[in-house]
């Protein structure tokens, strides 16, 4: 489903007068994600995880390497061709509050993707939004509330509902849980597990917290300053992890 071949990203700070320093953020990352399996990217802050996500989403161009999703090469697509790629690949960002327009109500946030891909009538959209809200276990009376009045956990549920509204095949979770409290984290993880069974989703989990990855993913890639240090598959388990991966595991 999603294949990346030796992605490399170099930021060269060629501002006008300073000497040319180039920072290598990612170095030949390649992996293959089959339909139905979930993959996790573990690594410390600043290991290049979010840059990789932005490249997969086509928000940024990789200096070298290709990203093919459902057979299409992301980088060669123009802006409006990317649109139908996004239909199958949705994102949930880290800070729920900033990933939604503060002036919008819950209904506006969730209906935005629906309006982009389908042309349903007003009340058809209303029904979809309603059962999406129940899918993410949010009560209906929250539908017309402004999103800034919701708690962190509820906002993240709305973001998940928005992502599910177009029945994507791959859901990318960019540190989606790290800004939430523990109890809410546990609830959201339970929700994500149920949704995975129900909609046959595959997840691409990006997190510095190994516990979340172990909960949701079948394969793990451990990134350290832009290079793949370890690669594990659930079938073989964690065999001979590098020491930096080991101390990721123990607090």
């Amino acid at each position: 489903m999603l294949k990346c071949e030796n992605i490399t990203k170099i930021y060269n700070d060629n501002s006008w007068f300073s000497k040319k320093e180039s920072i290598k953020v990612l170095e030949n990352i390649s992996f293959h994600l089959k339909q139905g399996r979930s993959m996790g990217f573990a690594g410390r802050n600043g290991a290049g995880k979010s840059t990789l996500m932005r490249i997969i989403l086509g928000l940024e161009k990789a200096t070298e390497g290709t990203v093919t999703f459902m057979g299409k090469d992301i980088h060669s697509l123009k802006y409006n061709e990317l649109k139908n790629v996004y239909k199958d690949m949705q994102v949930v960002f880290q800070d729920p509050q900033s990933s939604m327009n503060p002036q919008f109500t819950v209904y506006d946030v969730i209906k935005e993707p629906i309006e982009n891909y389908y042309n349903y009538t007003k009340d058809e959209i209303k029904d979809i939004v309603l059962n999406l809200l129940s899918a993410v276990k949010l009560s209906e009376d929250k539908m017309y509330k402004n999103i800034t009045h919701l708690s962190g956990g509820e906002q993240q549920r709305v973001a998940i509902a928005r992502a599910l509204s177009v029945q994507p095949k791959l859901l990318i979770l960019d540190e989606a849980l790290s800004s939430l409290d523990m109890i809410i984290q546990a609830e959201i993880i339970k929700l994500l597990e149920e949704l995975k069974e129900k909609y046959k989703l595959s997840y691409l989990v990006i997190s510095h917290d190994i516990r979340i990855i172990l909960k949701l993913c079948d394969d793990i890639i451990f990134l350290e300053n832009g290079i793949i240090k370890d690669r594990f598959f659930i079938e073989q388990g964690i065999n001979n992890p590098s020491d930096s991966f080991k101390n990721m595991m123990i607090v």
Partner: protein
Amino acid sequence: MKDKGLIILFSLLAIIILSALFAPLIAPYNPYDVDLTNKFAPVTSSHILGTDHLGRDVFSRIIYGTRMSLISVLATILLVLFLSLIVGSIAGFRGGLFDSILMRICDVFLTFPTFILALFFIGVLGVGLINVIIAIALTHWAWYARIVRSIVLETKQKNYVTAAKCSGSSRLKIVLKHIMPKVLSQVIILATLDLGHMMLHVAGLSFLGLGVQAPTAEWGVMINDAAPYIREHPELMIYPGICIFITVAVFNSIGEKLRDRYETKEFSSSESELCVKS
């Protein structure tokens, strides 16, 4: 309290606008009828505020003056908004070459002091109301264009714009639904705050005799005409001054109320752990 304050302000504004629109109906006399026999008439039932040095009814001249001031200020602000929104959003959205060229142009306009630049444009274009409007608009648009550009750039990086892009919204839709509402609301607030300031510039120019010319009923001109008779008839100069003051004050207060009200809405109400207002 805020709502009561806003109601008072908006009613004052309504009075000003109505008196400008229906000036001919409200004003008892034609502001240009010269009646030398009746010069400097004191306050009487027929002439509510007396007459000026040419016997014209002061009250009607003030009413017509409202129309003149509002027209000049609104025309200026529309021209400023028109120019700044276009230049600002092009610079903000396109970026790259467009951005640097347009910004250099703005820098050029901003190197000149505003009022001096207005004087210069009048020197080039000549005196008169339309030239005043153009002059003041040309001196203020650059500052607005910069602000529009910075808001566009700032909102473009916001997460919810990237999220909208990832949920398939077209570029145009993102602009209209996410970016423009924020830009417009900020710019409108700035414009209301600046209306008063521009009105003072218009009055200043007409005081110098470079803006609206003598016979027309405009507050700046009225003050200028009343200047030589300040010793015996100071009130001729005080009435138009008070009108300018009230109109500018109303615009400023409305601008401030909008700014305070709008800013609190923007501030997210999620419980901030360390609410430090001590």
